[in-house]
């Protein structure tokens, strides 16, 4: 081996030494938990909740992130199968693009339990547990109507157009708001789920009109972006409502800035998936239908102290 080879070897070994410990499997069964990212509070919360629930049931866990890349997700599932995973808990990388991957796991005898996002196929995953976005949007819109006193002008910030959840939430809002003719939408624009984009779009909208009473956003990141733009323009009284129940939004509600958000019980859903996976592995059935929807909850000033990380604590 050349001298340079030795140098490289030392660097690589040092790097690996820093992270050894994921180590060898005993007789424990492995549960793979694959989510879009670990650097986003929502996905992190569901990964951690699933991880804790699986460990508590005596599983070894394999936590992976696919970064919304369906090809990477396919490779991660390969790796999970190669490692001998007994079950997969998956927040997938695309309703259509994930079907073949989940089917591959099924064909290899490994059941998948989907959380948060649905698959455009049935009979491939054992369970699909998602939050009821339509019901959540109705809750948010009803609170919005109440805050505005059934009249005024508002802005709707829509999520990424290609995401089905953006459309479902927007429809949920619209179905409530159309009953109130005195509520007028001055703008309805997409901010692609992004905080920066929502901030800029809100600033642009404010250039045109200063008489805005409320902002209804398709998620909390956009709501926070809009809230920041409103505060910067000296308009703290505009009512902003978001969706997701992220810790940042809850903190904003506590500070008296954002008025409300719709909490998606991500942690509860992740735990339910693990419980059902465990039940399925022991008995061959979950005892539940494949498609399950979990209701969302409204978070306001009244109940914000009970909100944990994507779950509502009991009193």
């Amino acid at each position, binding site marked *: 081996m*050349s001298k340079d080879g030795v140098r490289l070897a030392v660097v690589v070994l040092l790097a690996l030494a820093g992270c050894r410990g994921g180590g060898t499997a005993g007789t424990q069964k492995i549960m793979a938990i694959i989510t879009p990212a670990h650097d986003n509070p929502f996905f992190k919360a569901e990964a951690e909740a699933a991880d804790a629930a699986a460990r508590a049931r005596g599983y070894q866990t394999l936590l992976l992130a696919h970064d919304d890349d369906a090809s990477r997700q396919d490779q991660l599932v*390969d790796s999970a199968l*190669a490692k*001998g995973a007994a079950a997969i808990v998956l927040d997938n990388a695309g309703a259509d693009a994930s*079907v073949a991957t989940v089917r591959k796991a099924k064909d290899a005898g490994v059941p998948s339990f989907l959380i948060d996002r649905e698959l455009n196929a049935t009979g491939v995953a054992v369970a699909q547990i998602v939050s009821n976005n339509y019901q959540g949007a109705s809750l948010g819109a009803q609170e919005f109507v109440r805050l505005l006193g059934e009249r005024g002008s508002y802005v709707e910030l829509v999520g990424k*157009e290609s995401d089905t959840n953006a459309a479902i939430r927007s429809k949920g809002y619209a179905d409530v708001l159309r009953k109130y003719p005195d509520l007028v939408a001055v703008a309805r624009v997409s901010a692609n789920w992004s905080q920066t984009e929502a901030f800029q779009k809100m600033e642009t909208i404010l250039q045109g009109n200063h008489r805005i009473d409320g902002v209804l956003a398709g998620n909390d990141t956009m709501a926070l972006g809009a809230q920041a733009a409103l505060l910067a323009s000296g308009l703290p009284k505009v009512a902003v409502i978001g969706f997701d129940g992220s810790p940042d939004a809850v903190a904003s509600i506590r500070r008296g800035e954002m008025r409300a958000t719709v909490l998606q019980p991500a942690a509860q859903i992740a735990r339910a998936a693990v419980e059902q996976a465990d039940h399925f592995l022991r008995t061959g059935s979950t005892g539940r239908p494949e498609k399950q929807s979990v209701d969302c909850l409204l978070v306001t000033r009244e109940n914000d102290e009970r909100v944990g990380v994507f779950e509502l604590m009991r009193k």
Partner: protein
Amino acid sequence: MSLLLRLRAVVALALLASVFSWLSPAFLTQGNLVMLAKHVALNAILALGMTFVILSGGIDLSVGSVAGLAGMTAGWLLHDGLVLRPLGVVVWFSAPSVIVIGLLVGVTVGALNGLLVVRTRVAPFIATLGTLYVARGAALLLSGGATFPNLVGRADLGNTGFTVLGAGVLLRLPAPIWMMAALGLAAWFVAGRTAFGRRVYAVGNNEHAAGLVGIRVARIKLAVYTISGFCAALTGLVIAAQLQAAHPATGETFELSAIAAVVLGGTSLSGGRGTVVGTLVGAFVIGVLNDGLVLLGVSEFWQIVIKGVVIVAAVIVDQLGARSTTGTAPRRQR
């Protein structure tokens, strides 16, 4: 000296492989190695095309987007067919012709890259950055941002068979591995054993001198970007076939992995120096890291750190080697 260069990358690969097989008993099993090669194939095919571009002194940032666009084109033709509204008919293509059309899309974008670089003298980095955006936008426009699902095809339309590209198996090895092997062999032959290959090295080493000795520099450049576009399109088609669905975001940041594989393999980013074999070994180093770290259950964040460390370390080692064996680094003029 080229032997030494090759050895160095092989040493890194052997080292990583032995570390992983020591840490995880599942690593050195036949099933895992086949899977690993199948995963590596995607990046390797991209990187083979990229090797020619980098050898010629250029860079191609558009490969990931081109992969996405080719996959989306195939998805569109398989799922919706070509709708000719004035005639009121829908034309359906067979799977082989869809594959050919997908590859043609890649070749076209590649040739466009080449033309931009040659005719307008825009720096390759900028020209291909532009096509990166254009191709990604075009991929999104094809479906309005949605996914083309269920690309298995329908027997009554005569367009089944596309998925063989991703799921086909010959002699117990999946199709992508065979493609990587065939393209690798072809690239090795072209780069090392043909006049064209020599000219690519010459252009990368000293474009001005290459022109003076009668090499048609513009043609060589046009050719390398076209090759890269072809390889990118093939990767995109394989991914769409594997997933049985075409997603417009497919291939985002793939260009970085491909460039990393080329550089890890000892090819100089300033052109004129490097080997095809090195690129393949480089792609395997990245693949072993990707899969091995997952198999070990290393946290995602550590995986990112380690990948970065290995890439930079390999290049540092490479430059030490270049200095000690050749004295001075090869110079290049625009």
